[in-house]
């Protein structure tokens, strides 16, 4: 176990930045999101949840895939280069680390998504235990321990000290580069912090929510439930829940007319949107109820059906905090528990 004083973190960040890009929670115009670090960045390690999850680091909201233009009567295709430079993603909460593992299931299974794979290859994840979990957190439901997150390096902020423990080869390599800034530390301090965090987690209102009835089978048993009709009505059909979610991975591929050619880009899509999965014949989901149902069944039924029972909700609670109509996955789970269907 190693540690560094909180006041020395700028020198740690500067040392990491010398070797590679560094992304971490930065406060801009009052809100904290993952952003590139430089000396002027207002690093914010006190806000529990960034508005957006860190998934942009591997799966950006919008990215060019290739561009094409006419040259001498022929169409030239210029592919986008894959990420070749290493980077460090610092301050990732336990739920968001699981979020990355969910994305891995999608993008690293055959056919492998080369854009995503390149970023995963280059990225080192430094996770960050949650000192003070909040009401809307329910990561424990999905077997996540926010007191001991996964990641290449795991960190805990206890008082004025950041405790640092490498867990993987990538983590060891990063630690070696900044070892001169870290000192040996007492593991008992971290153990006490973990006990305290787990004590708070037990008191959170949703930590022991039952997922009975969910999983692959729910695709059949809950698809036609009348509960969906009761639940969806306040939904505004905005994409907030999907865009703040660490695991929503649906995307659209579009062509942008640059005036002299075409840029083919992909961008996050939202199952809440009316043109989601629009095809030449039209749209296979014609009502907001169907779109609403799609999101929750994807998290709690379709994804586990195709991924050995792994749910694609990680209990981060961002949708709980951010839905303008205060609809969320907790209300869905509880409504089904109440109705029993």
């Amino acid at each position, binding site marked *: 176990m190693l540690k560094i004083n909180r006041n020395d973190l700028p020198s740690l960040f500067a040392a990491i930045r010398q070797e590679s890009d560094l992304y971490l929670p930065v406060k*801009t*115009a*009052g*809100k904290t*999101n993952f952003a590139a670090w430089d000396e002027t960045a207002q690093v914010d390690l006190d806000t*529990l949840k960034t*508005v*957006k999850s860190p998934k942009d680091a591997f799966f950006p*909201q*919008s990215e060019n895939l290739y561009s094409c233009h006419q040259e001498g009567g022929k169409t030239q295709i210029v592919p986008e280069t894959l990420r070749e430079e290493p980077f460090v993603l610092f301050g990732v909460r336990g739920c968001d680390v699981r979020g990355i593992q969910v994305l891995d299931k999608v993008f690293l299974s055959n056919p492998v998504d080369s854009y995503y794979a390149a970023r995963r290859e280059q990225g080192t994840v430094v996770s960050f235990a949650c000192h*003070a979990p*909040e*009401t809307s957190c329910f990561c424990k439901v999905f077997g996540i321990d926010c007191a001991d997150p996964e990641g290449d390096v795991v960190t805990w902020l206890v008082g004025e000290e950041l405790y640092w423990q490498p867990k993987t080869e990538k983590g060891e390599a990063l630690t070696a580069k900044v070892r001169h800034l870290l000192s040996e530390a007492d593991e008992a301090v971290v153990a006490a912090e973990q006990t305290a965090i787990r004590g*708070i987690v037990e*008191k*959170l*209102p949703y930590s022991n929510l039952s997922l009975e009835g969910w999983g692959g089978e729910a695709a059949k048993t809950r698809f036609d439930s009348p509960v969906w009709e009761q639940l969806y*009505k*306040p939904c*505004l*059909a*905005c*994409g*907030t829940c*999907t*865009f*703040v979610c660490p695991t929503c991975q649906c995307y*659209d591929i*579009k062509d*942008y*007319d640059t005036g002299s050619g075409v*840029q083919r*880009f992909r*961008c*996050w*899509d*939202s199952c809440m*949107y*009316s*043109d989601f999965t*629009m095809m030449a014949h039209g749209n296979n989901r014609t009502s907001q109820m169907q779109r609403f149902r799609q999101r929750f069944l994807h998290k709690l039924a379709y994804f586990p059906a195709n991924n050995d029972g792994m749910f694609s909700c990680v209990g981060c609670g961002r949708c*709980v*905090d*951010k839905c*303008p*109509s*205060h*609809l*969320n996955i*907790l*209300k869905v789970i*509880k409504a089904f528990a109440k109705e029993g269907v």
Partner: protein
Amino acid sequence: MQELIARAGALLQSGEVSRVLGWRKGEHVWDVEPAFFHSAEELSEFVYNGFCGANLSKYMIEASKLEGKTLVFLKPCDTYSFNQLIKEHRVDREKAYIIGVGCKGKLKIENIDAAGILDVQGADYPDCSDTLTVKTLYGDKEVSYASAMLERCHVCKGKEHKIYDELMGESVDTCDADRFAQVAAIEAMSPEEKFAFFQSELSKCIRCNACRNVCPACSCRKCVFDSNKFDSAQKANTTSFEEKMFHIIRAFHVAGRCTDCGECSRVCPQGIPLHLFNRKFIRDINALYGEFQAGEDAETKGPLTSFRTDDVEPGDAGKRG
């Protein structure tokens, strides 16, 4: 609140209304949701508290298409939106039974979070002049009611309902700020400062469209940003797109029709002060066409949708720079 439930129950029972549009209680005090109620049993979940900020007027567009009347609870500021929707023929007055419900200022959960309160499981809000006591896992905390209010309540348009069938409950005018102070401050900036300000705010935009979807003035059946016939389709293609297109076009489109209900800023997950765009237009319209408040009534023609011989000449507007 019990009076509201009893009155709604009686109107349902008598058959005068077919459904009730109000707010349903959530898991906590703050996560109330807009909801339709069809029976006394369903009304047991009805709630009216400090977190019922959602403006229900827009839901009346869909409710107007249903059989029978819908009882809708509107706060004073919500009635401006309803009037405006009548004017635009988007809701049917005959299909609505409006109870003008008292309002003492509504709260924003994020303002409580911003006060350093990490966890909210309950909140007592006796009156807007009082202190808000917040129950948390980490002990009870207190903040002033005013500091937890929505921005729009600080520039409250007053406690008068502009359209209603009956009134229930007391209202308080919570106005304690100049509605146009922030706009004036931005107008006083240099072009570079203005650009930096908006760049910093709008670069947070995630194009979730919550501002548009909640907006009572955004009632087009199909938004241009939802059309896949244009490059304007509702998904980000470059990072500068939001700043240059979406919000500015939306502000232009609602100019003269926006009642300044503040829903756009209430729902923005990134806390972008979107109301400032609309308020800039309102301030300019006031200066160029005379004082105008959209939704004040359901009849007066809007300054940008009518022609008067004494209208400002486009050239005059241009000269202002």
